[in-house]
């Protein structure tokens, strides 16, 4: 079956499609979030070393994963927009940035409140934490640059370029705990397996899935507003606001 990409990439079509899909993704996010929090806060046992405070993991790790994953997807949309000059890809990159920044902030904030009882400090200039902070600044830079031009297409191109350059930070974040001697612990979950209790692992994975669904719902909702702003002088948008 051949997928009509150009049909779905047209702003009027995608606007309607996103309007149908976003509530479904938000509903999925709520269901998975409830299941993940129940598993993490009720089912998962108390950690032998850290006690109850380890339960911050059920937000901290999924938020950190999403902060990096959203940046990667945003850069991919940026690359597509630069290569094929597609309007929708650039709008999707713009729509993802605030959600990515929000998850990066949540990862830093929860990490800080986990660090205080376990390391004795809210903040250290550790390689993992510093590179995550750089990611937050990259998101801010992307948003600022995208909105710095009167012509939005110029803003799209400049921001896409910044997103692509900033990609180099992702492997630095991921491998920082291996490359440098850091205070931050290494990964408990790898592609080869996990050292965690099964309930802890499921709690974390369910919340991660919930954040993923939420990110899709939020970016689809935001891209609808961006489409309205960009296409406001077209007949189909004028018809919507009646």
């Amino acid at each position, binding site marked *: 079956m051949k997928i009509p990409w150009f049909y779905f990439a047209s702003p009027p079509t995608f606007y309607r499609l996103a309007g149908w899909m976003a509530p479904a993704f938000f509903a999925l996010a709520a269901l998975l979030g409830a299941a993940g929090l129940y598993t993490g806060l009720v089912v998962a046992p108390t950690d032998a070393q850290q006690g109850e*405070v380890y339960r911050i993991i059920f937000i901290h790790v999924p938020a950190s994963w999403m902060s990096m994953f959203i940046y990667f997807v945003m850069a991919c949309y940026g690359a597509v927009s630069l290569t094929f000059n597609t309007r929708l890809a650039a709008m999707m990159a713009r729509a993802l940035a605030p959600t990515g920044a929000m998850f990066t902030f949540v990862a830093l904030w929860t990490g800080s409140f986990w660090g205080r009882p376990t390391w004795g400090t809210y903040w250290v200039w550790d390689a993992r934490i510093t590179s995550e902070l750089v990611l937050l600044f990259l998101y801010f830079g992307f948003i600022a640059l995208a909105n710095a031009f009167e012509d939005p297409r110029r803003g799209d191109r400049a921001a896409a370029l910044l997103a692509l350059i900033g990609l180099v930070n992702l492997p630095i974040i991921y491998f920082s705990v291996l490359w440098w001697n850091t205070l931050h612990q290494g990964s408990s979950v790898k592609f080869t397996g996990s050292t965690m209790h099964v309930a802890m692992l499921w709690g974390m994975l369910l919340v991660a899935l919930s954040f993923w669904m939420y990110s899709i719902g939020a970016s689809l909702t935001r891209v609808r507003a961006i489409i309205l702003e960009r296409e406001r002088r077209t007949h189909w948008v004028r018809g919507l*606001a009646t």
Partner: protein
Amino acid sequence: MKPHEFYLWMSYGMTAVALLAEIVALRMRRARSLKRIEEERDLEAQD
């Protein structure tokens, strides 16, 4: 309040605030966009 509860509440609370703030911002942005379209259309109709 047990010592760990403060750190848990601060983490889960801020996450809830951040998610809610984004949802409110999304709704406000959509309402602002629609209002702008209506205003521009009314201005053109007056011309």
